[in-house]
């Protein structure tokens, strides 16, 4: 990362040609793309891009050009990248799932319980369809906690809200969904 590294985010109603439009503008400014993640959530396109600018003071121009190109419904931000301390990565990877009737307070409750045990969310998605919520999170769980008690606490919190909550090791899902069975793997 250098002084010209920036974070670009775009939020806009989904339609065809958004990525083409963004990358065309970035190319015209000689922006060098380092990392990108994009998804569509409930018909809204969202993207986060880590990039390096060619011009020391080109951020404002790039921002306004992207906004003009994507139209008034799009929200575009471009901010300097700041080195942040790396999130703790100790522990093993688990999948937390919760399903049942939508309950407004459940995500704060579960995420607080994970944080209090020293766990860290590395991926999270939730979806509500016809009043039924499904939460899937990938979390790092420290190796020194009492897993059984953690699972009981999560299940208890879920059942109070009418949800079924499970915490299962990531390797279960790798084993049942990937072609190769890796006996020795760093995929903890």
């Amino acid at each position: 990362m250098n002084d010209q590294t920036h974070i670009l985010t775009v939020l806009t109603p989904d339609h065809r040609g958004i990525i083409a439009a963004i990358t065309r503008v970035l190319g015209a400014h000689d922006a060098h793309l380092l990392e990108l993640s994009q998804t569509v959530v409930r018909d809204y396109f969202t993207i986060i891009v880590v990039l390096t600018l060619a011009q020391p003071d080109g951020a404002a121009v790039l921002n306004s050009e992207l906004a003009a190109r994507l139209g008034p419904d799009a929200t575009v931000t471009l901010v300097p990248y700041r080195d942040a301390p790396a999130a703790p990565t100790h522990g093993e990877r688990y999948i937390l799932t919760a399903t049942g009737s939508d309950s407004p307070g459940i995500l704060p409750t579960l995420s607080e319980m994970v944080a209090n045990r020293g766990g860290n969310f590395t991926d999270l998605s939730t979806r509500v369809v016809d009043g039924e919520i499904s939460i899937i999170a990938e979390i790092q769980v420290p190796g020194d906690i009492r897993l059984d008690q953690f699972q009981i606490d999560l299940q208890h919190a879920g059942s109070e809200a009418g949800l079924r909550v499970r915490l299962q090791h990531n390797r279960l899902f790798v084993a049942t969904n990937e072609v190769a069975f890796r006996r020795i793997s760093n995929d903890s």
Partner: protein
Amino acid sequence: MIRNDAIFDTIRMFQEENLDVRTVTLGLNLEDCSSPVLAQLLDKIEAKVVGTAGNLVSAARQVERTFGIPITNKRIAVSPIAAVAAGHGVDALVQVARRLDRAAATVGVDLIGGFSATVQKGMTPTASALITSLPEALSSTGRVCSALGVASSRTGINMDAVLRTGHTIRAISEADRANAGFACAKLVVFANMPDDNPFMAGATHGQGEPDAVLNIGVSGPGVVKRALQRLIEGAEALSAGGDPESQLTLADLAEEIKVTAFRITRVGELIGRELAQRLAIPFGIVDLSLAPTPQIGDSIGEILETMGISQVGAPGSTAAVAMLNDAVKKGGAFASSSVGGMSGAFIPVMEDASLARAAAEGSLTLDKLEAMTSVCSVGLDMVAIPGDTPGETIAAIMADEMAIGVMNHKTTATRLIPVPDRQAGEMVSFGGLFGESVILPVHDVGASDRFVRFAGRIPAPLHSLKN
């Protein structure tokens, strides 16, 4: 991260479709416990079982928590006692059974297998004593299971052993009259007995195995049934919408079974390796048999019904179970390089509510069951027959089943239960996982007595001469 739908597919297998790890079975060599002094033999056996398997149950529970997968049974299979207790007599063997029972209770396992002998070509004095001891050994213990290997494709069928076992099964039933002959459910008679089978009652730690090894048996009929139902319902919905490509064929069903078996097997391998590592012993095999329980939705019969055999036992049942068995093996073999044991679809009548119902309604007969076992695992399993069925006739039923195994180079077995004082058409219930069933009629009783009384050995088939 794994795709969200794949995560929920996996969770659904446990949460809604009864997938569990049916058994983790610790195979344990006891040959180093041999002693001509009975007290020493008993103490050594108990010390080794308790010393090696002491952590089995607690370690299995840890693995259950880590992966959120139920492990239904934790069990032990020991070396054939006829070899371990060589030189001892009937009374001593009964004491060995009781000591095994006590050791199993100490470590918290519900069954311990290996009170066994392999007699497919001949019988040592101790093997003979072990068979004699079975009525008392099995009726006076709660956890001890026995397996007898009476035939193999290499040696043929030891009809002396088969005839003797036929009479012994009657004697076991009589000895356990108070429990409707339930002790017979703890004896399996094999052709081509596997050395690494994790499923009870037939599990034995065979020759060529390590000192201790962890074998695992998965289950999952409910998962296969639901996968097929979803496939069929999806196709029917498309068909109703006018999609001409939505017509399913049996090859589509086979493919769905195969993919499902892959995932089931992977669960087994994962759990098996993890538990073996925690116990610091080698991982052996995953047995990918589909093992039903009396619970609704956990049935081989229901799979066949989903495949379009509305009454199990009807014409087409053998073809359907053959396709099921083959697809399960293909999926499982691709999932794991450690497939072993019996690895097929079990059709234990009493333990499968759908099969038990078909038997009660008369569509599933002993003869049709026998035909089905020629293409699946493992044989006439948990079949209740009238209590007055003569030993010769029981031996003849076993001989037929052994012949299927010997001639087809596959494992076959019988677990027959003559129910004292009850006749064909009456019910018997053993409760829990052992289920209930109508007592099946045995026709032409006595008509094969002359044949089985010739005794001796049915020679090995021509195709055993491979060298």
